[in-house]
């Protein structure tokens, strides 16, 4: 039977969303993870809790507040309107913004753990070898924390691919714009097209299993510092 054209569109959209979100999260998550790993500020606790919230909140709750803040009356909505981008709900970029929040802990925590595991000594060593702050970031932190970054990228990508509740709240169900694979599966089940649902759902199952298998294999090989967090 194979995938229908609509399935391929959903798969393409899902991959585009996950790649975009993963790249943005690595860029945004790294400074947050760095700050959390190094700070002794009293804001560390509250910020950690905020970052971790998506781990425990029902996606509908998160989606509800994101919908409000991205709407015409919300702060994100007012910002995007004033920039001439219109409002984000029910658009691809709305999904991107929502996914940034939703997948944030899956990217921040592995990077934070890896940076904490490095400690301050290698940075001091590099400083005494004349390496400035940026030099130290690229020649010491990134190479030593590489396992953490790889875990973060894999988890952020996989978790975005597996999103459903938040997407339904923010994006609705627009083909080619917001109808990702998980929503497409939902549609098939609603329409009692179980055979089509099987194709997509089975593919997702296999994909997720392979990704996690790769992650744990990689982690065992590195013996260590990567992943201290469930999904």
């Amino acid at each position, binding site marked *: 039977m194979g995938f229908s054209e609509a399935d391929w569109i959903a798969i393409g959209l899902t991959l585009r969303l996950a790649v975009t979100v993963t790249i943005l999260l690595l860029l945004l998550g790294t400074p947050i993870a760095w700050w959390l790993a190094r700070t002794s500020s009293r804001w560390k606790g509250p910020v950690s809790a905020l970052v971790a919230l998506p781990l425990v909140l029902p996606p509908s709750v998160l989606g509800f507040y994101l919908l409000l803040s991205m709407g015409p009356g919300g702060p994100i909505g007012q910002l995007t309107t004033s920039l001439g981008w219109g409002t984000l709900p029910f658009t691809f970029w709305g999904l991107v913004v929502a996914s940034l929040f939703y997948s944030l802990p899956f990217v921040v925590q592995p990077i934070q753990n890896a940076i904490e595991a490095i400690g301050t*000594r*290698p940075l*001091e*060593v*590099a*400083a*005494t*070898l*004349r*390496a*400035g702050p940026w*030099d130290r970031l690229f*020649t*010491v932190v990134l*190479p*030593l924390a590489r396992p953490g970054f790889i875990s973060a990228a894999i988890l952020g990508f996989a978790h975005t691919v597996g999103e459903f509740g938040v997407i339904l709240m923010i994006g609705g169900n627009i083909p080619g714009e917001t109808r990702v694979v998980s929503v497409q599966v939902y549609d098939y089940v609603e329409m009692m097209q179980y055979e089509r649902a099987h194709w997509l759902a089975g593919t997702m199952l296999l994909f997720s299993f392979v990704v996690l298998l790769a992650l744990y294999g990689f982690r065992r090989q590195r013996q260590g510092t990567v992943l201290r967090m469930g999904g």
Partner: protein
Amino acid sequence: MSASDIITRFQLAYPAAEGDPGFSLSVDTRLPGRGITGIFGQSGSGKTTLLRCIAGLQQSDAGQLVVGGETWQENGVFVPAHRRPIGYVFQESSLLDHLSASGNLQYALRRARPTPPAQLYDHVVALMALEPLLARYPHQLSGGERQRVAIARALLTHPRLLLMDEPLASLDSGRKHEILPYLERLREEFALPILYVSHSLDEIARLADHVVMMKAGRLAGAGSLAEVLGDLHMPLAPDDERCVVLEGRVTECDPHWNLARIEIPGGHLWLANLNLTVGQPLRVRIFARDVSITLHAHADSSILNRLQASVAAISAEEGKALALVQLRIGSSVILARVTRRSLADLRIAPGSQVWAQVKSAAIVS
């Protein structure tokens, strides 16, 4: 006092907290900008903190640091660590784990400013005997080998000042003796001022030219190695481990008895000849417990080394059996550990003319 001196003035305090007595560092001194200066003290005395302040790895609340006429720290000025022309050797292994031994060396060499002379790399690799280790990664090296790479790496930054924080403390005694000769060669081949932090009097005696003594975050004394070791009141070590180190030179080898004559300021010693050559400079360490005192030169003693001396000072405590005596031999000072009863029986007091019998002396470098 010279322009190359290191002017250090640091104030730093961590308040006491529950289970933590707190710590404060208060130092205001000039360190010599030449030779090896041993910063000596027990753990917790602030030696490492002082070194970290000099490196710029730690910022003191108030302070001034001028090295060779260049201000590194003064009100409002703080040159960050990576802009200070220092080399730093940490106590424990500090190699960058993601780089091989040669990668670690290149990391330093590429960033060295001003660009070091082209032959520096080969010279340092040969000096530390690293050729067979270059391709290995830190986890494939022994503790001693890692420390040799770390010392070489610090040298390759082409520093104007080398800071060493207990570089041997993490090694067992076998590995220590494997590294010490490299440090001695370093002293001989590089005209580089070195600040060497250690809690081991043994290392200080072998390596240092000057000594700064730290106690509870304060300076407890400073001077040349001979001055500090010969000072009765310097709290260096328990009395039975007190020693002095004399700089000497081999002036004669006697193949018949296999002895060598070592000229020291104010006299000479005959020591077992272990491959010494005439003219060779060396350091001789004499423990106070190996020195006894007689009033006359005993030609009938088995002790070969008898030196005419005058008693300069005595440190004796009521209730203790043993006293420490400071003896002056020409311009040299040695210490003798003898019973208070012997001092009384022989009527030895400051000013007495005596003979020091040196039972044993060790060539330390």
